[in-house]
């Protein structure tokens, strides 16, 4: 496994470099010069030139890229065009709520999907299975913002059971219970989309395992069906699920933008929308880079974990 690890890590290096290039290129496709766009037109041209010089915008593009890359390698992402705060600080202040939202949603999604997937596989081709599979399609097909708006309307406005948005009650204590109550609806929406996809993976993976010889052996030893399913089959059926969870991370990060907008959740998604509306390119560039790096890193971890868990993997 040693050489595999080294190879896997070495591959991640050029991919990370590619991520920085692409993040930078996307921002350089913007027409016009940011300084001309933002600065008050009454500012004299000399001041404008000074500003451009200070921001390094008069350098050739590749020089700008390498200056930015040098910063990235030192852990700096430049300064926001709109608030002049360091981008790392802006992202740092918002990443907590997004991580809370994303991890809770992933957990809820799996808690819904695993039992349903197992049930669907054990009772495959029965009415229950068709119902569950149909519902899982509904979960992946419903636009998250539509489900979110519907929940706000019913649970928030009509029944007044849950707050319609935000992370804390204004003037409230902002304690665990307060945040938890605000988390319910966004997590339900994101969790539902995840559960929809995972149900079919769990079902397929479980069906695959259920047909294997060692389960017949377990049964013929006289083990109860429950023990066969949950102790012998589930363990192996869950291995492929680990790999699939990795694929969920970009979806969670992307999906949270819409969810955060619907529920006014103060995370990375809202920061993205704010930066888009104020054409804050350094922040957007930093957001893209950080998000892609997180995905790269989790994929790396998942691959390593997967290799460690499944002895059947060959390393060549």
């Amino acid at each position, binding site marked *: 496994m040693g050489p595999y690890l080294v190879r896997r890590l070495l591959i991640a290096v050029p991919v990370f470099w590619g991520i920085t290039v692409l993040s930078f290129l996307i921002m350089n496709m913007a027409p016009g010069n940011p300084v001309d766009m933002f600065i008050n037109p009454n500012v004299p041209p000399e001041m404008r030139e000074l500003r451009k010089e200070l921001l390094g915008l008069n350098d050739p593009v590749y020089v700008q890229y390498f200056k930015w890359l040098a910063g990235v390698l030192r852990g700096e992402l430049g300064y926001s065009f709109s608030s002049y705060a360091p981008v790392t600080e802006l992202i740092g202040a918002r990443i907590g709520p997004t991580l809370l939202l994303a991890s809770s949603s992933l957990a809820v999604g799996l808690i819904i999907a695993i039992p349903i997937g197992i049930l669907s596989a054990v009772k495959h081709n029965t009415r229950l299975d068709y119902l569950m599979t149909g519902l899982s399609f509904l979960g992946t097909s419903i*636009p998250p913002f539509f489900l979110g708006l519907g929940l706000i309307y019913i649970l928030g406005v009509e029944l007044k059971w849950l707050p319609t948005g935000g992370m804390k009650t204004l003037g409230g204590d902002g304690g665990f219970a307060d945040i938890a109550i605000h988390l319910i609806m966004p997590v339900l929406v994101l969790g539902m989309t995840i559960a929809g996809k995972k149900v079919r993976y769990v079902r397929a993976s479980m069906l695959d395992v259920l047909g294997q010889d060692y389960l017949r052996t377990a049964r013929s030893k006289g083990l109860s069906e429950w023990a066969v399913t949950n102790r012998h089959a589930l363990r192996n059926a869950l291995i492929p699920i680990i790999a699939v969870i990795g694929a969920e991370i*970009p979806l969670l990060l992307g*999906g949270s933008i819409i969810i955060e907008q619907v529920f006014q959740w103060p995370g990375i998604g809202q920061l993205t929308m704010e930066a888009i509306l104020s054409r804050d390119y350094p922040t957007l560039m930093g957001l893209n880079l950080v998000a*892609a790096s997180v995905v790269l890193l989790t994929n790396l971890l998942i691959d390593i974990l997967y290799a460690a868990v499944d002895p059947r993997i060959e390393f060549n």
Partner: protein
Amino acid sequence: MNQAELAWRKDAMDTERRHDGADDPPSFESYARQVRQRFMRHKVAVWGLATTLLLLAAGLLAPWLAPYQPNEITDAFSAGPSADYLLGTDQVGRDVLSRLLYGTRVSLLIGFTTVAIYVLFGTLVGLIAGYYGKWIDMLLMRITDIFLSFPYMLVVLVMVSVLGASLWTIIIVLALFKWPAIAMLVRGIVLSLKKADYVRAGVALGYSTPRILLRHILPGASGAIIVNATFGVASTILAEAGLSFLGMGVKSPQASLGNMLHDAQSLTVLTEQQWLWLPAGFIILLTVLAFNFVGDGLRDALDGRQL
């Protein structure tokens, strides 16, 4: 008989032997019939296909079906559903039903065009990477890794906002971050097919590489590509709706299903003018669900053991 038929024939033979032990190799027509039969057995998929066709018809015929011009300002503002305006009017006084029809047209147009572009490109990359292998494969796969690292919704949203939203930028950007999945899928199939005897026979006969790739290998991957593209239409429509909902997709006054829900972010619209957002939301749900069911049916029908 081309290689596509050969590949299909092999698959069909396996199935037929299992079923009735027939010795005669079945014809291409019988494979097609079998696929059709398997698809028709999948009831929700048939429902999905019917719904898809209905939505396509609604989109194509929108100019004739819509009672009003989509941007026409009538004398009723924020009026509820009535005999004159079946689904009411919006704050500017435009007929919601007419805008729904045109919105469906735009969503389907974006869905199909985007998928056509990225499937073509991704397939080409996958064929080249899988067939040539070595450093070409290594390079192309690292490039797909780079593109796949970016969370789709985030990068698409940012890039569209940087370039400025127009129908074509939306389509190009949606496709730009979607091809890697198809490329990886096709590459995997090419890797397994290129060792097959009939492909090696083609190489031994001195056929040109494009001919081997397009006529011998590609048909073997076509089932998987069709299934993936069908699911792709669903997810692209969903993504475009998300962009438009955030106000970064199709811009008003042009109607799109997503931007019709944009206004429901205000509580008045959400609670008092449901006709402005409920129908649009349901149409998106219906469209996406229908394409997903068709994709599922196709996967079963084409017997996706390699999917």
